[in-house]
């Protein structure tokens, strides 16, 4: 087979450089959203920064394996959650067994019994809990439940996206989400009403 014409080869290289540049720009446009999820999956800002940098290094190196037209935000998060598992961050200081969560209404019921039913009608009742207590409660959830809560409730991913990112069935996403949210409310009740 003959060598490609130099002009043809130059055009191919230029086209590839443009594709790559477009890919990198699109990936970087999601950086804030990627960081948002990373920050709530790991314990500190520094760890989150490291994790995001590792994610982008991996993404930029494997840009050819991304299928144009598919969900890049989910693709980046898939890389990030896998790296997070690889680094063993998933098993950080978590209890051996998550205690059985109380009901969905646990926190609401606690507030109602302390302040009366009408307290639940007030928009500001949730704001009496400090933002730190919300962050702490979230951090206390067992990692496998927390990652689903973070993806869906903080990262705005759909059930289907979360299932794809974590490589688990949608039904598992829904049940982990349900348990994770219950655990969050239980922890919030313990933190704020002790």
């Amino acid at each position, binding site marked *: 087979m003959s060598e490609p014409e130099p002009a043809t080869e130059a055009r191919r290289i230029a086209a590839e450089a443009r594709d790559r540049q477009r890919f990198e720009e699109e990936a970087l446009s999601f950086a804030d959203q990627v960081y*948002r999820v990373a920050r709530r999956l790991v314990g500190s800002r520094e760890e989150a920064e490291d994790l995001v940098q590792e994610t982008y290094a991996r993404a930029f190196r494997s840009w050819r394996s991304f299928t144009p037209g598919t969900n890049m935000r989910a693709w980046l998060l898939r890389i990030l959650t896998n790296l997070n598992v690889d680094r063993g961050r998933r098993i950080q200081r978590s209890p051996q067994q998550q205690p059985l969560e109380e*009901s969905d*209404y646990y926190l*609401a019921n606690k507030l109602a019994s302390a302040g009366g039913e009408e307290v639940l009608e007030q928009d500001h009742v949730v704001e009496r809990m400090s933002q730190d207590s919300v962050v702490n409660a*979230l951090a206390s959830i067992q990692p496998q439940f927390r990652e689903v809560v973070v993806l869906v409730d903080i990262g705005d991913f759909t059930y289907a996206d979360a299932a794809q990112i974590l490589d688990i069935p949608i039904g598992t996403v829904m049940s982990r989400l349900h348990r994770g949210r219950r655990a969050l409310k239980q922890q919030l009740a313990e933190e704020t009403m002790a």
Partner: protein
Amino acid sequence: MTRDPCDKCEEILQDYLDRTLTNDEWAEAETHLDGCDYCRRRYRFEENLRRYVKTSAVERMPPGLMEKLQELRGLDATA
């Protein structure tokens, strides 16, 4: 109105707030919520709580991180 927990409402709370109920289930839930103070207050509370959790948990990217990510551009698979 009852002070006892409404099992049916608690069961569909997540799907209602996530907007994954079918149209019929949605209509049924709305009808019930219209007549049940106990559940309506709790649904309202849960909606507010979700918003607040998100507001509290979202942390913006630290300054400087974007520049570090920009520097990673052009990384080669063989590098």
